[in-house]
């Protein structure tokens, strides 16, 4: 192929790759973009057809969900609005962070044991933990509601933290177990020969070397727990429900407050974004197993 033809082929390949990538990203990110613009539009703009891409943005939606707006009644008396967003964020943080901490405290040692033990029932136990994720939440929600009400756990943080383990524990155990299986037994044996206890070996050798897996599992578990809707809606009432359920506060009898719902979606996604950025460096670091010859 001549030089000119090669150059043309190169440009064509690069151009078409870029076009495909731009189209894919546009398709995938469009809903995010749309919600973002919806949070900034006036109600007429939201509902109009054909849809408006260029509009005058307003920040009333965000002010409203943060409780910074005021309602003026017919008699001229103004009242503040409650910030369901902040209530929801507070609940989400309490519930999900506690869930993750408990899942890590239980799941990391479990992952270690499941990675190392020679018990014949090892795979059975691991699979059983995985099956927790198979149960559709809608299937178990009714029995759970009846059970928790009866033992007085309706509308408590504990009930949510407990139930959320169904989501986070299998993820942490399975993902971290895979990473721990990759750590050669010889490193632990070197630690034992050097005179260290199994506990020291677990905290100072195994966990640091499984850092990548722990970060990945934590992030995934966090996202799935944070995004959960059904457990919060049924097992808790207003002041315990997480931010996902608080969006329903804006489905009022008067009107469906599209803008405020969009705003709360954006607000609910922000903590996840921040967490991803924070954990990203652990995900990328991987394991420097250059100390072991492969």
């Amino acid at each position, binding site marked *: 192929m001549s030089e000119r033809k090669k150059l043309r082929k190169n440009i064509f390949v690069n151009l078409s790759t870029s076009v495909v990538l731009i189209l894919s990203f546009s398709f995938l990110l469009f809903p995010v973009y749309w919600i973002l613009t919806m949070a900034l539009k006036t109600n007429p703009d939201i509902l109009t057809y054909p849809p408006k891409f260029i509009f005058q943005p307003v920040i009333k939606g965000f002010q409203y969900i943060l409780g910074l707006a005021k309602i003026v009644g017919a008699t001229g008396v103004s009242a503040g609005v409650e910030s369901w967003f902040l209530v929801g964020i507070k609940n989400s943080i309490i519930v999900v962070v506690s869930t993750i901490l408990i899942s890590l405290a239980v799941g990391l040692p479990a992952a270690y044991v499941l990675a190392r033990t020679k018990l014949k029932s090892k795979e059975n136990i691991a699979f059983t933990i995985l099956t927790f994720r198979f149960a559709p939440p809608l299937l178990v929600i009714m029995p759970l509601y009846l059970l928790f009400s009866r033992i007085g756990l309706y509308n408590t943080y504990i009930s949510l933290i407990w139930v959320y383990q169904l989501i986070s524990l299998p993820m942490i155990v399975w993902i971290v177990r895979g990473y721990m299986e990759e750590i*050669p037994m*010889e*490193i632990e*044996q*070197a*630690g*034992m*020969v*050097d*005179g*260290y*206890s199994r506990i*020291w070996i677990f905290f100072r*050798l195994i966990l*640091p*070397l499984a850092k990548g897996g722990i970060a990945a599992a934590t992030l995934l578990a966090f996202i799935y727990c944070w995004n959960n809707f059904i457990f919060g809606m049924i097992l808790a009432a207003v002041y315990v429900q997480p931010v996902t359920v608080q969006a329903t506060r804006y489905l009022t009898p008067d009107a469906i407050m599209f803008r405020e719902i969009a705003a709360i979606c954006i607000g609910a996604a922000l903590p996840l974004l921040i967490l991803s950025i924070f954990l990203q460096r652990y995900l990328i670091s991987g*394991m*420097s*197993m*250059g*100390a*072991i*010859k492969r």
Partner: protein
Amino acid sequence: MPKISLKNITKKFEKVVALNNLSVEINDGEFFIILGPSGAGKTTFLKVIAGLENPENGEIYFDGDSINNITTAKRDVALTFEDYSLYPHFTVFNNIAAPLKSSASKNKYNTKQIREKVDKIAKMLNINHLLDRLPSELSGGQKQRVALGRALIKEPKVLLLDEPLAHVDAKIRNQLRTEFHFLREKFQTTTIYTSHDYKEAISLGDRVMFLNKGEIQQIGIPEIIYNFPKNTIVALNVGWPEINLFDCSVNSKNSQLYCPKGDFVFNISGNILKLLEIYGKSEYLVGARPHHISFSEKPSDVYNLKAICGTSEVLDNQLVFYAKIKNLDLTILVNDPDLSLIYKQELWLSFDDQSLIFFDKETNENIKLKE
């Protein structure tokens, strides 16, 4: 610097028997080498002594005290692994210092003392310029030295080295082998060193134990292992090039041996004949080391076995070539690298009958070592 005794040690992994009823005694301060091919059980042997694997059967004694129930941390042994097993996320300094900071050392050393000890060992092993590096930034030879430093720093009672030179470049290997001689003199610890390379074994060992498939084939000083191998397995694995082995039958009347594969006879002296007659059998497996076969380009009374020359190879200052007598392939080693042999040239060979090794055809055992 204890004397180590193993009595009837058996270690199984599921169905595989890694160590089969081993009993051996290793002397105080001895540099004891375990020689054997891959899969022989050398690493398992070391791990059993270290306490990282528990034997199904048998006892281990240090200076007469049973250590079967003592955990690894308290046995005061050091082990270097074949793949070094350095802590990947610790610097070289922290890798070497690790044994001094463990609970087993009962916090005996303060920071300053640890610093001094690490510097001293690092200097001795020529790695003091690498102390801030991570293991992933080191070469094979450097990693090996760090692993050694980590093992030596706690001045253990027993030093276990698992194929330390196996994955190191040839040039560094020679260098490190010299260092092992030096370390041996300096530390006088009871040392058990495993290898699949018989040259290392012969060079470094006070005594050598040949292990194959979990069973001890022979234990003895290097000279004995080389000159009086107990069976064909030991003979084939010790010595380069590999010993020539072929069947022969005895003709007492003519004081000759007949080899059916090569269809030739050769004379043997009276004392050899007597040895064979005392043993009693009429057929033997004969072993001839490559440097005990001589040749001439012209036939004579002594050089009377006609052979066709095959390919040849010059290594260092030696010449190795292959020759064929009818259907029998032989390897021959000569100290004259300048000799030029032509492929398919005719040569006349002679065996040095005094240096031949005779093995019983059924048991594969050296008849000279039969009690």
